[in-house]
């Protein structure tokens, strides 16, 4: 099934609606109608929960999550300029999502999606990139976004170590000497990471909170946001905002991968969070 079969009818619907009410700026407004303007609209279009004007459908409405409607929308929710994922892959994804017996829908409140927020902090007079991973968490009467992970090159360089070679170590009888050789271990700050367990993984979020609280990191601005979705069984996709001319704009699927096993899923999750495999 070709994707243009999804996209065209929807654009025609937008055109019809816009022709009916606009004058000089028709071209621009048509673009804004087609644009997936909010992440909220991505959810609604993906699930088939709104009409072409953006009015919401509710569970009692006949068109709510209607498969034909969803088929129209899903084709236009991909970044059309991305050659990294094939048309066949997109069609396979759409087929799984639109399965009549087990349709794949997105749930705003369910786990399985994460925001990756690129921020800039000023550290010792220099602007540094800091990535915050955020998740929705239930709290009291509602929900809130919380920071679940953090990553920055400014921290990761301190924890790089080669565990394949025999480096420096504390010999196995050190305990008999009340670990007096720790003094030598801490003489060189460069090699101190070699004395940590090979199972150790740094918790950057703890470091980050400490540095912010100490006043060593000052927030400047958010430079970019994207989302990672694991809510559709057997699939991963990335959602990003495309601010560019044309109709294929706004919040669109910027990456898509089939994940066959839990092991693949875990490897991808670790890759996203910059965790060492």
């Amino acid at each position, binding site marked *: 099934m070709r994707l243009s079969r999804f996209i065209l009818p929807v654009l025609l619907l937008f055109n019809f609606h816009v022709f009916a009410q606009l004058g000089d700026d028709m071209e621009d407004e048509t673009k804004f109608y087609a644009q997936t*303007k909010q992440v*909220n609209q991505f959810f609604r279009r993906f699930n088939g929960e709104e009409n072409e004007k953006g009015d919401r459908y509710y569970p009692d409405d006949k068109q709510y999550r209607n498969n034909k409607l969803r088929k129209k929308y899903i084709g236009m929710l991909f970044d059309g300029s991305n050659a990294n994922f094939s048309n066949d892959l997109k069609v396979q994804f759409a087929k799984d999502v639109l399965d009549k017996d087990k349709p794949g829908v997105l749930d705003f409140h369910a786990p399985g999606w994460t925001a990756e927020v690129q921020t800039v902090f000023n550290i010792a007079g220099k602007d540094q990139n800091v990535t915050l991973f955020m998740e929705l968490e239930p*709290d009291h009467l*509602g929900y809130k976004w919380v920071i679940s992970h953090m990553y920055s090159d400014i921290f990761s360089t301190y924890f790089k170590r080669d565990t394949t070679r025999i480096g420096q170590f504390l010999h196995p009888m050190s305990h008999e000497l009340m670990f007096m050789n720790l003094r030598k271990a801490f003489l060189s700050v460069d090699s101190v990471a070699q004395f940590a367990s090979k199972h150790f993984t740094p918790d950057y979020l703890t470091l980050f909170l400490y540095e912010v609280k100490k006043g060593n990191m000052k927030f400047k*601005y*958010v430079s970019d946001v994207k989302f990672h979705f694991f809510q559709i069984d057997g699939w991963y996709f990335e959602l990003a905002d495309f*601010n560019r001319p044309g109709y294929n704009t706004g919040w669109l699927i910027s990456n898509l991968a089939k994940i066959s096993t839990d092991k693949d899923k875990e490897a991808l999750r670790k890759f996203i969070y910059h965790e060492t495999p």
Partner: protein
Amino acid sequence: MFVGLVASTLSAQTAQKAEISPQRKQAIDSLALEKVRDLSKYISIIGNKKTPYSEATRVMDRAEELFIPGSEMGVSSLTSKEVNYYKVRKYFERLMALNYDRVNIKWYDIHYISDLERQPDGRYVGVVTIYQRFEGESDDGLKYKDTTKKDITIYVERKKTQIAGRTIEFWDVLLGDIRVTETSA
């Protein structure tokens, strides 16, 4: 104690799932749009070079009343990833002080209203998206125009008031932070 804990957990879950009916949501959307239209109107007056200073100041006061205290505008352009944050009053003052002889602000006839989500304190929050075309021109021929997308936070709260001794409950909408993005349209 265990029973109490279960009860409180259940009530918290119920509260998180408490949804506004479609009819109520429509009424709240209309109220939110009314406030957004008021803001659009005020921005056009503040930006208009023909508006006297005293009138612009009065309109800025009215415009500020639409917002919850501490609301900010986060402004970015196509040329830079950097976002500049201004308190709404500061944003209005900057708009008024723009160095053009003629300013034309037009609002596109399109909007998008998100669902309302409940936050921990029980208030509902949503986002209304609108688009604005700005054109500025100086007497020396300098022209500037841009189209910006404005994602406007709305806070929805159930309030009570006393009228002639009777308690009346109503839904109130206030505006919050606004993200302003230059679009490539």
